Every structure is written in structure tokens, then in C-alpha cells.
């Protein structure tokens, strides 16, 4: 690497570490926002969230195959479909436990996780699948910096969605109701806010964002029935990093975590990756443990679980 001119080393860093970090971070952010929102409203850790991502990715696969659309264009439909399914799942499997200890809902979410995953395996099989076979030519910037067009889309869509969610939470009636239920549930009830309506909207948003993240994974590599399960740890770590119950914090936490994961395999010291890529997913866990020990409220001082 020393033989290369300085400029290309920087571009190599941007192309191979920084951009993938932003892409991974976007995927984590979309998942973590849902976890954080749902925890704020329902006060339980939704462990089936990773598998909701899987479901969204496979719905998009069927849309790509059925309609012949590019994966990116299927996102609105796949996200809406997944959102509706999560609302239905809530009605069937979480709503009966609203007045019970929240840990019962956590157990129920394990059952939902198994059911989603085995349904996906039954319908689409267990072999990894791709939206579009073949390799796409990257866009070239500054003569040498190669960036895949889809990566630009993924980061842009994530930023747009997170901004839209922020505006929704701060400017609209429903958004304010959601924040009220999250921050002061008793006051919200007294003020006549329908908690069930808020819960439905929250599930829809959480499911739709998770599905979008799932489609992004499929656009970037391939999808398989365990993809969501493998993402569960990082998205929870991101949600804790950002402070539970703070959607914007969760988005930031996802981005930071994605960057840390990708940048950790950069040869910062010597010529070898700092941390072997095999253990990338272990890093999220290590960060989470460190947070649990020293700062369980997260960097942005959210609530504790």
C-alpha cells in the first residue's frame, strides 16, 4: 500500500470502508428506529423485528419476480405490505397481553419470530436468493473512486425516511400523540388519545422501515431466511446506543455502529484488518456490553429498558 500515491489510498478508504459503512449503518438505522419506537410505545423489546426485515425482503423478491420491477421500486409496496402484516400480527399475538407483564409479550415475540421464519422457509425455501443476478458497473468519481449507484440510493432513501419520521413525530397530530403515549402514557390517556390507534400506526411504521432495510440487504447482496436473525444483535445494539425510546438517537446509533463495523476491518495498524471480518458481528455485541456496563441509557440519554 505504501507504493500507492496518497490520493488513491484515501479514495480506497472511502470506496471500500466509508461507503460500505454508511450503507450498513443505514440498514441498521432503519431497523433500530422501529425497535426504539415500539419500545417507547409498548415497553417491550420486539425480538421478531429482524424477521420482519426478512419478511419485507422476501415480499420484495416476489414483487420483483412478479412485476418485473427493479428492487428499489418495490420498496413502497413491500414496506406497506409488511407494515400491514405487522399490524395484523400485533392484533393476533401481542394485543392479548397489553395488560400483562411486558415480558410475556417478549416471549410471544419469540414465537412470532419462529412463525415468520418458518413461513418464509416454507414459501420461498432456504437457499439464498438474489433480486438481480450479475454484477453492476459502479459509478466512477474523481477518476478512481468507484461507488455503486444503489449505495447512493440506499443512503439517500434512509436519510429521507428518517427525516420524514422526524417531521411526522414533531409536526403532525399523530406524531405528537405517539410521543405523548411514549413519554406520559397516563396523561395521554386522560387527554383522550386512543392508545390502540397510536399502537397500530407505530407497528405500521416499524414494520415498513424494517422491510425497507430488508430490501436494502437484498439489493446489496442476497437474502436468506436467517438474514433478520443475524441482524437482531446489531439493531438492538444500535437502539441502545442511541438511547431506547429515542427514534432519532436509534438512527444515529445505527449509522455509528455500521461505520464502526466496516472501519474496524481497515488495516489501521500494520497491513492486516484491525478486527477479522469473521467477527464483525461480534463487535456490535462488544459495544452493547460496554454500554450496558457503563452507560445503559445510551449516548443520547434515552430511557432504560
Amino acid at each position, binding site marked *: 500500500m505504501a507504493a500507492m500515491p496518497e490520493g488513491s489510498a484515501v479514495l480506497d478508504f472511502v470506496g471500500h470502508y466509508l461507503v460500505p459503512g454508511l450503507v450498513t449503518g443505514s440498514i441498521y438505522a432503519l431497523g433500530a428506529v422501529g425497535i426504539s419506537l415500539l419500545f417507547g410505545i409498548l415497553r417491550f*423489546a420486539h425480538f421478531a423485528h429482524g424477521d420482519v426485515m426478512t419478511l419485507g425482503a422476501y415480499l420484495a423478491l416476489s414483487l420483483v419476480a412478479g412485476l418485473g420491477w427493479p428492487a428499489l421500486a418495490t420498496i413502497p409496496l413491500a414496506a406497506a405490505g409488511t407494515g400491514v402484516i405487522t399490524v395484523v400480527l400485533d392484533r393476533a399475538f401481542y394485543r392479548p397481553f397489553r395488560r400483562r407483564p411486558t415480558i410475556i409479550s417478549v416471549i410471544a415475540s419469540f*414465537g412470532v419470530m419462529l412463525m415468520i421464519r418458518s413461513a418464509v422457509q*416454507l414459501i420461498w425455501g432456504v437457499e439464498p436468493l438474489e433480486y438481480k443476478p450479475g454484477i453492476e458497473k459502479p459509478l466512477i468519481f474523481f477518476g478512481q473512486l468507484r461507488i455503486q449507484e444503489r449505495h447512493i440510493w440506499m443512503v439517500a432513501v434512509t436519510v429521507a425516511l428518517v427525516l420524514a419520521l422526524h417531521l411526522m413525530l414533531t409536526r403532525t397530530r399523530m406524531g405528537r400523540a405517539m410521543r405523548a403515549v411514549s413519554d406520559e402514557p397516563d396523561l395521554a390517556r386522560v387527554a383522550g388519545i386512543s392508545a390502540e390507534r397510536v399502537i397500530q400506526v407505530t407497528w405500521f411504521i416499524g414494520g415498513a422501515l424494517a422491510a425497507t432495510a430488508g430490501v436494502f440487504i437484498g439489493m446489496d447482496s442476497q437474502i436468506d431466511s436467517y438474514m433478520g436473525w443475524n441482524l437482531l444483535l446489531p439493531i438492538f445494539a444500535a437502539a441502545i446506543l442511541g438511547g431506547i425510546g429515542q427514534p432519532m438517537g436509534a438512527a444515529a446509533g445505527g449509522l455509528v455502529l455500521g461505520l464502526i463495523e466496516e472501519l474496524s476491518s481497515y488495516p489501521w495498524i500494520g497491513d492486516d484488518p484491525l478486527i477479522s471480518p469473521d467477527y464483525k458481528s461480534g463487535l456490535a455485541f462488544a459495544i452493547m*456490553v460496554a454500554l450496558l456496563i457503563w452507560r445503559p441509557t445510551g449516548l443520547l440519554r434515552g430511557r432504560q429498558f
Partner: protein
Amino acid sequence: MDTGTILYLISLATMAGLYAILTLGLDLQWGFAGLFNAGVAGFFAIGAYATSILTTPGSEDRLGGFDLPIPLGLGAGVLLSAGLGYAVARICLRLKSDYLAIATIGIAEILRLILRNEAWMTGGNRGIAGIPRPFEDMDQPWGELCFLLVVAGFVVLLYVGIERAWHSPWGRVMRAIRENEEAAEAAGKDVIAFRTHVFTLGAAVMGLAGGLMAHYLKFIGPDATEPILTTFLAWVMLIAGGSGNNRGAILGAALIWIIWSGTELLTQRLPSDWQTRSSYIRVFLIGLLLQIVLQRFSRGLLPEKPPRPGGGKPG
């Protein structure tokens, strides 16, 4: 009955017994103390791998084996699993239960990553084969029967031990903490210390289950720590049987294992295309069964019985 049927029944009972041990470990943590462990697979794996590495004959492909006696291997597995449980408890028990859940999932997944990647130690994806099974030199079905008796002995031992603990002052404090943490704390009980003890004990029992399972199956690979077969099955067994009731835990383990392996027997008769599909249907149904039990029979088949005040032993 022909030998095949007898062997099948023995294997069914042995597996049910092994799962009963695992479920009793979970019952200690969840049924007694309300501690949510979602990483049963991790503690199971530690016990299984520790004894496998220690008791197998030497191999160049991985660490060990050290050809040590089986009880020594099992003991080491139990200790390591307890140590891991202690560490997790120290970090997470100050926080709400959801944190414990995600941290235990994390431990289990990291362990799976290590088992898969560190081939110098664990044999990687190939796993560890040739794990000795006690009594395997004996004729069929006597060797299998002896192993079943050992497993049954452990189940009885654990059952009696846990029941005694449940009715002891220690057990009363545990329940008090589970029902009302603040009140127990106000009564001067060190809530964190009690929880740490019970979590560590539960982890030790899970390690024992893992170790025995490794000796029974004679092979252990990273897939054996697959959460569906350990964590989720143990949870369904405990919830269906009745958490907080040790007999319930054992009954749940036996019943769910019979359903689980019985449906496998059924689906083997299907054409091969449907065989693979039906394994997903089985997992789906286990998930659905968990939901139905949670919603309709939330206390399980044998609900927890609060000890009668003043009842039981005099004095």
C-alpha cells in the same frame, strides 16, 4: 417388542430426560426468579464443547482431546457454564429483564461465531466427533438403558434438590424478589446477589444438559447450538409444562419432545419433497403452540403452587 422399538423408546426417553434437565435449568432462572434467558443455547454449548474437548482422544485438527474421564469433562463443562452465567448476571442483572434477554442472545450468538470460526479449538464447522458415550461397550439395549438411567438419575437429583431449595428460606426470598422486588429489598435482602446465585445455578444445569447431550449424541457441531433446538424448544417446554413448577418443567419437556420427534416420525413417511417442507411446518406449529399456551393456558399444564402458609414441614 423387537429391539428396534425398545431402542427407539429408550432414545425417546433419554432425549426427553436431557431436555428435562435443560428445562429445569431454565425453570430455576425464569420460574423461580423471573430472569429471562434467551441464550440457553450458549450455556448448553459451553457444557457440550468443554466435555467434548476434554474427554475425546487426541486429535490434530483441534484443541485436545485430552482423553480425560467423562465425569471430569462434565464437571468442567458445568463449571465453565456457571462461570459464564455468573459473568452475564454481574453485567445485566442491575437492568430490566429485556436487557438480560438481548445480552444472553448476544452471548449465544458470539459463542456460535467462535465455535464456527476458531477451528483450531473446536474443529470449526466439522465439529467434534467420536465423543465417548458411557456404557457404549455393553450390548444393545443394555448400554442405552444404563445411559438412560444416568440421565434419569440426574433428573431426579435435580428435581429433589430444586424442590428443597424452593421450600427453603432461600427459595422464599427468591419468590419474594420475583413478586415484589422493592418489598424484598426493603426487607433487607440483597436482590442482586440472590439473582446472581440463581442465574449462575441455572446456567450450571444448562451446561450439564449440554455435556450429557454431547456424550449421548457422540457428536457436537456448531449447528447443535442452533437456537431453535435448544433455546426455543426449552422455552416452549417450560411454558407449556408450567413455569415455577418443577414437575411441570419435566412433564413439558417430555410432552413437547414426544410431539416434536413424533411429528418427525410422521413426516418421514411423506414424499421427500414434502419432508423438507414439513420440517418448517413443524417449527411454525411449535411457534403457534407457544402462542396458544401463552394466551389460553398461560400457567401451563401444571401451574405453580404457592406453598401453603404454615403448611409443609413442621417447625
